[in-house]
């Protein structure tokens, strides 16, 4: 059982950073919605406040890690240009997708949207983290500000979902593969 280094980085980018970010979104929305509402009367403990601060920090790190690995590590492999006369486009995902009308939309719509919309995620969650770091429990006294933070986190979930969906579908049709292979487990021959 082996995986190529390009495949491993794609996995780390999508299934690691991206998927973890998507999973984390619901927790942030619920916590901000439930505990930081102006109508919520029970006091927020320092432990709860610290937990949400660390949670949003982790989300911010995941979001930046996802877009930076995607843009600067995986995307160059995706858009690699094959030498003239190359017939087998397996190592050139963008060109492979564009080579057929049945798959070209996955690049011209899917990847073109994904590569840009994904960047709304770190911008939004960095804002959410910064606002929460500044206001913390005081966010209860600023319901409009809390509503904006919630809205941006919700949009970041949508943007991350779009990027994740197209990333997964594109990788099914034209996987980013190449580089040295890493042996994970020695299989048995039958």
């Amino acid at each position, binding site marked *: 059982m082996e995986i190529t280094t390009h495949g491993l980085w794609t996995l780390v980018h999508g299934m690691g950073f991206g998927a973890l970010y998507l999973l984390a979104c619901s927790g942030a929305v619920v*916590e901000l919605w439930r*505990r930081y509402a102006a109508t919520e009367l*029970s*006091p*927020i*403990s*320092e*432990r*709860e*406040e610290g*937990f949400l601060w660390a949670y949003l920090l982790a989300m911010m790190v995941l979001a930046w890690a996802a*877009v930076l690995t995607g*843009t*600067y590590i995986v*995307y*160059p492999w995706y*858009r690699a240009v094959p030498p003239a006369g190359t017939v087998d486009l397996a190592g050139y995902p963008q060109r492979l997708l564009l080579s057929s009308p049945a798959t070209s939309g996955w690049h*011209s*719509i899917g990847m*073109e*949207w994904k*590569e*840009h*919309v994904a*960047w*709304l995620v770190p*911008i*939004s969650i*960095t*804002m959410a983290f*910064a*606002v929460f770091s*500044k*206001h*913390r*429990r*005081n966010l*209860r*006294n*600023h319901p*409009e*500000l809390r*509503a*904006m*933070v919630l*809205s*941006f986190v919700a*949009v970041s979930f*949508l*943007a991350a979902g779009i990027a994740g969906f197209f990333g997964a579908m594109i990788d099914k049709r034209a996987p980013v593969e190449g580089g040295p292979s890493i042996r994970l487990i020695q299989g048995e021959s039958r």
Partner: protein
Amino acid sequence: MSSRSGDTPAPAAPAMTNGSGAAAVVAAGFGSFVLAVAAIAADKSAAIKSMMNLYRPTGPLSGVTTTAILAWLVLWMVLELRWRNRDVAIKPAGAVAFTLLALSLLLTFPPIADLF
């Protein structure tokens, strides 16, 4: 995550202005919008596309995202310096920011971006 009996209740929240928060929200909306506009500009103009090619393996995407991040951070810094100690009208500021964010989501969608 409701408060547990062993948790230390946080001290009463001190009164704070909303200026810093508003600055962060507006700048985030603006940065997102710049990203969408820069992406369209790089797609439509060969000169801008070439200018945005900061890192060849990534292509124009490197310049588009760097431009947006710089615009976002610069505006955030400027607004923070101007608004940090005051209350601003958060509803209109929030409405502008969210409109810019929603437009960014739409403008990055290729069939809509291709209309320009």
